[in-house]
């Protein structure tokens, strides 16, 4: 499986067509991103962080930078909660003013275009932008940075409490069968004592082939609370590579709920730095891998300060000949006494052909901490199936009930009811198709 990286000439000439303009610091940042990507190239399976996820094929695709596409409004249909009352719609990396709805927010709260913020609020953006998404060792973050142009910007002033969920919808697509790549960028700055629920959706038409390379940065101020939901419903032919970086402060609460339903090759990195005492962090994930898809979740929780708690539950349902990777790193710095970290990773294999590679990675430098982790990989429990059948449910009903139960723990964490309902419906619709195939093969 080992392949040799072909560092030169990835993506054909796409790298030469980087966006231009904007403030001087941004131009510099793009140039540094491009230089770093050129040096790093696309990671290979010899890179420890990419051992089980081979993305080298990406480099030989002659992607074109994403352009505006037709019928963006129609492209929102059929995806979870895209009719949210507050939404920022970004189509192929460009903020779409007509499709976005950002009125009626509390005073001072901004939800809008990153490009506009770069222009109108350069000082705030400059203070935060790129501070978390370090690209020294991250090829794709470097690539994203090289292409920064637009995306979503959310700003919550101190004390702002936003009741309506803020939905950022990234639409990817290509007209006429072009292979496009888009580099969505999200920046969220939440001031002290602020509170909001933020949803990022990544959607694309079912059979279109494209590459989404997303980077999101979230700064959570003192005593602020941010719940973040990522709903990934890309085309089943798409590459989706994304990193989410969060930084918490004193007594702040951050939760991330990641749902992977789409994409052919998927890599999600979540990096949370708990950088203030008394912070609390939840990282949850639920992914469905089927067909020949690959879903890779890499998470890092960095306990940098004392008295922080972190709770992590990742669950996967695998069918077909799909593959999944889970790598959960927890770092407890020397200073981070009284850390309480708990990590659980579970995967349910519906077929013999599905495989998962899972690895907890604990790096503990403090001595008064509580860290637990557990992984369980398996098929459906036959005893449980028999128990349900012995009460009158058919094999299929019993199996569905167990799978729903398996997913429930992560779904229940979704505190936006219409979103949870839509997610449940879509997850189980897709599962029903997968299970029908499993039954055919029985």
């Amino acid at each position, binding site marked *: 499986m080992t392949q040799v990286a072909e560092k030169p000439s990835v993506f054909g000439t796409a790298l030469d067509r980087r966006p231009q303009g904007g403030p001087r610091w941004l131009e510099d940042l793009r140039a540094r991103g491009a230089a770093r990507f050129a040096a790093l190239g696309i990671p290979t399976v010899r890179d420890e962080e990419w051992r089980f996820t081979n993305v080298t094929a990406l480099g030989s695709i002659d992607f074109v930078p994403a352009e505006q596409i037709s019928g963006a409004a129609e492209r929102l249909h059929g995806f979870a909660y895209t009719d949210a009352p507050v939404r920022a719609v970004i189509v192929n990396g460009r903020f779409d003013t007509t499709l976005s709805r950002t009125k009626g927010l509390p005073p001072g709260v901004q939800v809008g275009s990153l490009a506009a913020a770069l222009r109108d609020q350069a000082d705030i953006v400059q203070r935060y932008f790129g501070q978390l998404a370090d690209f020294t060792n991250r090829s794709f973050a470097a690539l994203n940075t090289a292409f920064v142009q637009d995306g979503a910007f959310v700003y919550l002033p101190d004390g702002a409490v936003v009741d309506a969920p803020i939905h950022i919808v990234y639409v990817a697509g290509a007209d006429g069968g072009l292979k496009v790549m888009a580099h969505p960028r999200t920046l969220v700055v939440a001031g002290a004592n602020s509170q909001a629920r933020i949803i990022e959706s990544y959607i694309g038409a079912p059979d279109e082939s494209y590459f989404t390379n997303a980077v999101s940065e979230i700064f959570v101020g003192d005593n602020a609370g941010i719940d973040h939901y990522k709903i990934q419903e890309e085309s089943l032919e798409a590459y989706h590579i994304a990193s989410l970086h969060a930084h918490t402060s004193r007594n702040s609460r951050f939760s991330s709920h990641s749902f992977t339903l789409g994409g052919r090759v998927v890599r999600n990195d979540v990096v949370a730095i708990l950088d203030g005492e008394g912070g609390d962090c939840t990282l949850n994930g639920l992914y469905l891998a089927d067909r020949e898809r690959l879903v890779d979740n890499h998470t890092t929780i960095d306990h940098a300060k004392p008295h922080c708690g972190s709770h992590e539950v990742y669950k996967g349902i695998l069918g077909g000949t799909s593959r999944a990777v889970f790598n959960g790193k927890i770092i407890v710095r020397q200073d981070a006494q009284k850390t309480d970290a708990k990590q659980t990773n579970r995967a349910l294999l519906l077929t013999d052909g599905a495989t998962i590679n899972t690895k907890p990675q604990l790096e503990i430098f403090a001595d008064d901490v509580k860290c637990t982790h557990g992984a369980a990989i398996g098929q459906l429990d036959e005893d449980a199936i*028999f128990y349900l059948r012995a009460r009158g449910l058919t094999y299929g009903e019993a199996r569905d009930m167990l799978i729903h139960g398996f997913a429930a723990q992560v779904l229940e964490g979704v505190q936006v009811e219409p979103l949870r309902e839509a997610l449940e419906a879509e997850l189980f619709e897709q599962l029903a198709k997968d299970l029908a195939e499993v039954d055919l093969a029985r």
Partner: protein
Amino acid sequence: MSMLDVKNLHVTAEGKEILKGLDLHVNPGEVHAIMGPNGSGKSTLARALSGHPQYAVTEGEVLFEGRDLLAMDPDERAREGVFMAFQYPVEIAGVINANFLKAALNAKRKHLGQPEFDAMEFLQLVREKSKLLEIEDSMLKRAVNEGFSGGEKKRNEIFHMALLEPKLAILDETDSGLDIDALKLVAAGVNAMRSPDRAFIVVTHYQRLLNYIVPDFVHVLSGGRIVKSGGKELALELEAKGYGWIDAA
């Protein structure tokens, strides 16, 4: 018509023959206790009757109301009115007890051509049935058997039985591990369901349960066969003498 006819039943588990020609005849309204030493095949009988996939019937026949029970899937047996209270109720993460019960009850009602219960009707039935067994709301809202104490698990089994109203109920060592208060509750739940149309097979290792659920017949199982049958006084004799004399006899 008889409720259950077991004729010359041979059952193998993990390649080993456990039941070696068992006969049992149960009429509606009767309570049959199956007793016997550990390893005699008591639980194997219960599991084979409920259709557990790890128990293979190699010979013999079982008729339930005149129909071939062994030809039915486990879920069909349940919907037709055969219930087994598990010796070790299974914990089912993420599946809420009440939701599961509603699905099971409606699966049965649908099978019998009865209208399914809506949420209100179901709730009313639950209220009515939960009192006797002292089933708290929290037990209904929790995942099935998850984090339940031993006594709660057994009470939950009998509660499931009370809701599903089977024709034939098989209790597989429901008394094991119960303190006397829990045992009384469980027995009260069973006794409340005794009726001329319903039969019980009570599998137990101890006579104690039969002080509270008084059987019409007691059968002693040994070496995979019923070696002695009698009335309720047989249980007392077993309690006094132990199982040793059976094998010797």
